[in-house]
């Protein structure tokens, strides 16, 4: 009877596995198909794309769209700016988040509870766009790169994740022992905690960097100078905006427009590539990092 049970269980198992694989395969197709389509369309003859001939693989292979992007100053200026915002911004994010997360992770810090409450509340309440704008303005940051970096210096969610990581994956005994040896908190943080926290640091870099890379709203509000525009704002222009501001002008747009039409797909690829490329480098760390960080909240 026991044997019979194992038998039926194993056949049940097989069915179960088959269903699992089928669903998983379906998910992969659903996720990948739009991406493959964009890649193929970007490498195809635009008229074939417009004619709906491109289904899966490129038709009338051409890299002209990419060549066109190469010549588009706006995209490159946007690229350069975004890289700058992303690196400087992420660095500041990291420093600020560590400085907040570590002390707040210490169970022996008097006043930790109230401080956490003060921080957590900000996730759910804000003064609104105008007062925030006025603040940024009064700090002299409007139309400078700082407006895209300083107001978002800490993401509270990330702070909580990092704090939880410090609390749960670095043994408190270790910290106490270090204290016994006369180690100051600064040295403790720099020499012991941070080296033990590489996974969460990798995750934070990824979180923050992706955020900076993809941000556009701040720039829409704070940045006037087109030379400071990040890539996403340039993209928004190319991909989505339909503007009709033209009274007696309009001239000369046409060429650029047809161009824009043909580079749409390629632009999507070019702008997303860097973050996608970045991912495998931190991927090793990050499942562990995200996990441990958020789970034991």
């Amino acid at each position, binding site marked *: 009877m026991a044997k019979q049970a194992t038998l039926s269980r194993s056949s049940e198992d097989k069915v179960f596995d088959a269903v699992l694989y089928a669903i998983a395969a379906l998910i992969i197709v659903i996720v990948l198909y739009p991406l493959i389509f964009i890649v193929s369309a970007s490498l195809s003859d635009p008229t074939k794309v417009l004619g709906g001939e491109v289904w899966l693989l490129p038709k009338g292979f051409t890299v002209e769209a990419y060549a066109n992007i190469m010549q588009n100053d706006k995209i490159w200026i946007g690229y350069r700016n975004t890289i700058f915002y992303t690196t400087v911004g992420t660095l500041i994010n990291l420093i600020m988040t560590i400085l907040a997360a570590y002390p707040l992770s210490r169970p022996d810090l008097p006043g930790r509870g109230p401080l956490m409450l003060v921080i957590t509340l900000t996730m759910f309440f804000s003064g609104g766009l105008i007062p925030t*704008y006025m603040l940024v303005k009064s700090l002299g940051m409007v139309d400078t790169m700082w407006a895209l970096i300083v107001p978002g210096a800490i993401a509270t969610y990330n702070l909580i994740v990092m704090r939880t990581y410090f609390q749960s994956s670095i043994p408190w005994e270790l910290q106490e022992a270090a204290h016994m040896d006369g180690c100051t908190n600064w040295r403790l943080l720099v020499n012991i905690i941070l080296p033990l926290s590489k996974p969460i640091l990798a995750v934070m870099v990824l979180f923050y960097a992706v955020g900076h890379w993809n941000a556009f709203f701040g720039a829409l509000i704070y940045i006037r100078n087109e030379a400071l525009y990040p890539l996403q*704002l340039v993209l928004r222009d190319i991909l989505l905006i*339909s503007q*009709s*501001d033209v009274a*007696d002008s309009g*001239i000369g*747009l046409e060429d650029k427009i047809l161009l824009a039409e043909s580079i749409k797909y390629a632009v999507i690829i070019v702008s997303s590539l860097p973050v996608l490329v970045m991912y495998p480098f931190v991927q090793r760390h990050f499942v562990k990092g995200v996990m441990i960080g958020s789970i034991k909240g």
Partner: protein
Amino acid sequence: MRKHWKSSAVSIAIATSLVMAGCSSGSDSKNKGNDASSPPSASPSGVSASGFPIVPETIKLKMFTRIAPVNGPFKDMPVFQDYEKLSNIQVEFIEAPTDGFAEKKNLLFASNELPDAIYRSGLSPLEAIRYGAAGQLIPLEDLIDQYAPNLKTLMEQYPEIRAGITTPEGHIYAIPGIVTLAAARTDKKWINKAWLEKLGLTTPETTEELYEALIAFRDQDPNGNGLKDEIPMTARAGLVVVNMMSGSFGLDQQLGYNINIDNDQVQIWMGDERNKEMLMYLNRLYKEKLLDPELFSHKEADFLAKQGSGKAGFFFDQTNNNFLPIQDQYEGIAPPAGPHGDRLQAQTAPIARDFGAFAITDVNKHPEATMRWIDYFYSDEGSTLLRFGREGEHYVLKDGIPYYTEEYAKAENQPKITPYAGGGAPHIISDRVASYINPPQVQEAQKQLDPYMPKVKYGAPMFDEETAQRVNILRNDIDKYYEEQSTKFIAGALSFDKWDEFRSTLNKMGIEELQRIYQEAYDKTKS
């Protein structure tokens, strides 16, 4: 009619000069000639009332402006380089791209972070009143009187300009771009005459004939390539098509809104049966794929590309600049007559076409000099500099009229050198500076429209602050609702069974109160 305008303008002028006398210092010794060559006569503030330079010692001004995608940086434009030397006023432009401009302009005022002036700012009358009443924009009427000889002359010549920009309290908070060239105030109705001829059709005279012609465009492959790639009719994105067609259904656009004026009765026609007829007509065109299915989603750029592609049968634009290479295929036609025989070119801007093109803020330390600075562009000479750049380099004179050199007639170069490209620049557009935008084909198209222009065109009225606020509240709701529902009626997303609901919602939103407010404003301009 004219008489009325004049008398009201005069009384306003008197009122303002009384107000002014009390607060301005040294308004007596003014040389009001607008002859640029007369010797500079210094006023107490060091600003010469005429002639150049405007100020003896260089001053700097910051101006906030909109830069269109087609423009190059303002500091590289010949007009601003040359004018800086001429006027001794250095202008630093804070350029905000068209995309996101509205956000930035409003935040500028909301946070009281003001430049010295705003240039090509596209302020609406309601905005001008709001920021004027808040003290952020300064009243300009006496500055115009003393330091803007060109503008003043124009305002005397066309009294409706003053009436259209002066608040009931007698203040002018923003000065407009002025367009005396009628052809620059309308969009022509361009039809593909090559297709008409090929299909043996006559120029459509009624909306039904237009419908038939569009069907022929759709079905009979007029471009002969064997593909159904013709776009029978298209327009700029959104509800622009409504403004273009409303005249055929007896719907005028007076007072800068969806308003008919009949026997001095102001009527907002959004809930009117005539409007229903028009929307049903447009819906029919849309449903049968005669009206561009991408009407509500295509970008400005797409629309222009369609013009240039030669695949469009019927569309609207001010000039032929966007389809120059294939211009021979098209001709401008008169508005088709509607079901009740209405034939009106309702879409017509007033002479003060671009309201709120320029304004001076309260942080400006040199309002007199600023006013002199902008006034130059209201002369043909200044406008030529603005639109055409330097003689010899960018343009040549033929019979005293400037024409771009070959190099700068090119679409990719022309908008780089002038801030007028992209629309809304504060200056005068007269027939003296219109060689590029008013070539013979456009003049011809305008002649078709001329007989059907409204007898009088009232611009958007100026309200007092309190009323303006009320109008703002009412219109924010009503306009949003109207635009959304009209779009849905045309696109067929909303059935005309819902028309009564549409009307009653408009009523609930206070359309009658709004009509009353416009009536009062109209009565005031008449009295």
